[in-house]
């Protein structure tokens, strides 16, 4: 059994995805347990594989028993093992969160949603563990198709967003496919290890250069690398929260992983690689600045988070493009940290949407009192996005800046710092809404400046919609809000939604404090010994 662990990582969610639609019709109660169990099994398999790999070195699994250049192999090394753990962990969290968020669904929809989610996970895991560039394409497309449909589940606007996402995503996939075609033309092989052995001889040719450029562009679309990010804001601001939380946390990271895998493990230094990486680094830097500026301009909380994702993915790609050891540490650490914090933020945003039906920043007004725990998690995640210690975001920034210094790229240092300040600007705006803006409270300082409070009220009221206005009134009287009381029966949220949020919020800090440990135990083995 243990010898088939790598296959199990992908196959358990895949099989569950086949079973779930049937179960939805035959035995609905089993749908959720089966989905959760399969993801838990996948997580366990990933963890076990990672543990073994860290102890014994890379592990190759040959499908059908065919040796690699001819057959397809799975390769578990600290990098892919770590990514597999990340993906399956977030899948598990999203699977907990989703049912409570989505509520009671029709039979058909429940089966289809569950199945597609499992397919998305299986596809991403397949991308992570495969050692074959064409197989990577196939699984990338499985995950993409699933996510197009899942985005479309968010309603009519989401359907339009999903269609555009699909067009752009397919262009990306096509570029990637054509790129590996070029590499195939240059080497005659599709296996990553074999490519790594045969490419150096062909690296100076134009064919390899164009192939790599096409791959970079194709994966750039999937990573939402600026200026190829056009699909992301619409898709992420309209899709259902669990989908966005999972996709924002992990899906784009898997594409970044593929980028890392191909440019550092398959290709290696030399030829067109360095200029290409420099170009990608510039695009990432532009994305960091542009994403932060655009996020600052948003009034919709979800779109703000989406644009901030564009910026944060820029961090990851920037680190990958630096080609220095510390830069790569930073990129990989940021894959983890950004997954934690953005997953947390989107889950909180989803919780707010779930309770109020709104997704603009103004909807967060005074939420600190109604959802104190979620807002605490939001605060921690926001601090991490800004990159303040001791949260994870700070430590990824630490390595990214050190890596930039190592590469002598002062411009990138400036970009990272400026982006931190911009993100501070837009996140503290949110924090102000959450914690400081509220109905005039009776506890403002005794006898002092009542006129100011009063003067603020009409303006504050004008901007609010009916429901929120009513809640404001209710909040002032310290009475339970009758309108929403029914929906918050147990606590501020149903526990399946609250627990993942709190877990991620705590994870942001834990990941920060243990970043040295993570680097020493996993990441340092996941980076090529001599990057460049």
């Amino acid at each position: 059994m243990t010898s088939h662990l790598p296959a199990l990582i992908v196959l358990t969610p895949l099989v569950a995805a086949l079973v779930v639609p049937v179960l939805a019709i035959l035995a609905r109660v089993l749908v959720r347990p089966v989905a959760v169990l399969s993801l838990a099994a996948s997580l366990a398999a990933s963890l076990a594989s990672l543990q073994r790999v860290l102890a014994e070195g890379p592990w190759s699994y040959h499908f059908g028993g065919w040796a690699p250049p001819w057959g397809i192999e799975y390769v578990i090394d600290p990098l892919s093992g770590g990514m597999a753990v990340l993906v399956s962990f977030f899948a598990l969290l999203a699977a907990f969160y989703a049912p409570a968020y989505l509520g009671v669904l029709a039979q058909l929809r429940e089966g289809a949603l569950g199945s597609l989610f499992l397919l998305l996970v299986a596809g991403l895991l397949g991308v992570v563990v495969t050692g074959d560039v064409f197989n990577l394409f196939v699984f990338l497309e499985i995950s993409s198709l699933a996510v197009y449909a899942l985005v479309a589940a968010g309603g009519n606007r989401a359907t339009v967003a999903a269609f555009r996402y699909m067009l752009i995503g397919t262009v990306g996939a096509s570029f990637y496919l054509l790129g590996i075609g070029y590499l195939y033309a240059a080497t005659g092989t599709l296996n990553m290890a074999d490519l790594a052995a045969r490419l150096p001889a062909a690296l100076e040719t134009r064919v390899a250069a164009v192939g790599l450029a096409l791959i970079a562009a194709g994966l750039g679309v999937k990573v939402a690398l600026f200026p190829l990010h056009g699909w992301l804001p619409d898709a992420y601001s309209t899709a259902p929260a669990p989908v966005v939380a999972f996709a924002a946390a992990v899906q784009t990271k898997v594409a970044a992983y593929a980028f890392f895998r191909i440019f550092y493990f398959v290709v290696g230094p030399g030829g067109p690689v360095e200029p290409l990486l420099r170009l990608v680094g510039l695009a990432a830097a532009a994305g960091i600045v542009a994403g932060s500026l655009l996020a600052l301009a948003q009034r919709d909380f979800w779109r703000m988070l989406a644009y901030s994702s564009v910026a944060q993915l820029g961090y990851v790609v920037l680190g990958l493009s630096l080609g220095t050891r510390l830069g790569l540490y930073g990129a990989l650490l940021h894959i983890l940290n950004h997954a934690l914090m953005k997953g947390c933020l989107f889950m909180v945003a989803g919780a707010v949407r779930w309770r109020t039906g709104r997704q603009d920043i103004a909807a967060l007004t005074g939420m600190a009192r109604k959802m104190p725990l979620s807002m605490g998690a939001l605060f921690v995640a926001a601090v991490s996005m800004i990159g303040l210690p001791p949260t994870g975001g700070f430590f990824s920034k630490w390595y990214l800046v050190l890596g930039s210094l190592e590469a002598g790229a002062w411009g990138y240092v400036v970009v990272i710092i400026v982006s931190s300040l911009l993100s501070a600007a837009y996140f503290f705006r949110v924090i102000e809404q959450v914690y400081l803006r509220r109905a005039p409270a009776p506890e403002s300082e005794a006898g002092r400046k009542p006129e100011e409070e009063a003067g603020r009220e009409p303006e504050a009221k004008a901007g609010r919609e009916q429901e929120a206005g009513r809640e404001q009134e209710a909040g002032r009287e310290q009475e339970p809000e009758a309108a929403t009381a029914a929906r918050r029966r147990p606590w501020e949220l149903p526990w399946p939604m609250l627990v993942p949020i709190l877990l991620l919020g705590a994870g942001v800090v834990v990941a920060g404090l243990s970043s040295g440990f993570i680097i020493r135990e996993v990441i340092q083995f996941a980076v090529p010994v001599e990057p460049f």
Partner: protein
Amino acid sequence: MRAAGLVLLVLVGALFFYSSAELPPTGDPGSPPATHVSPRYIEAAYKETGTINLVTAVLADYRGYDTLGETVVIFTAGIAAILILAGLAERREEP
């Protein structure tokens, strides 16, 4: 948008024509794809897989896992179409 598209077009086109001269000429028996990996499929497929159709041998056996993925893609598309077409827009998700 349109202008950006045209710029992209010109860039990609330039890449293609820049590299086309170095791609292996059509039908070149000495090209890497013809000399690496694939000879084994041709020479040993019958012995190893027992089929005379080499494409089938590759598709279903050597790279059978790709084909599993292929069927999963179809399955995904089917489920996706069900989800997209069956569900009327959810009330709550409607902005």
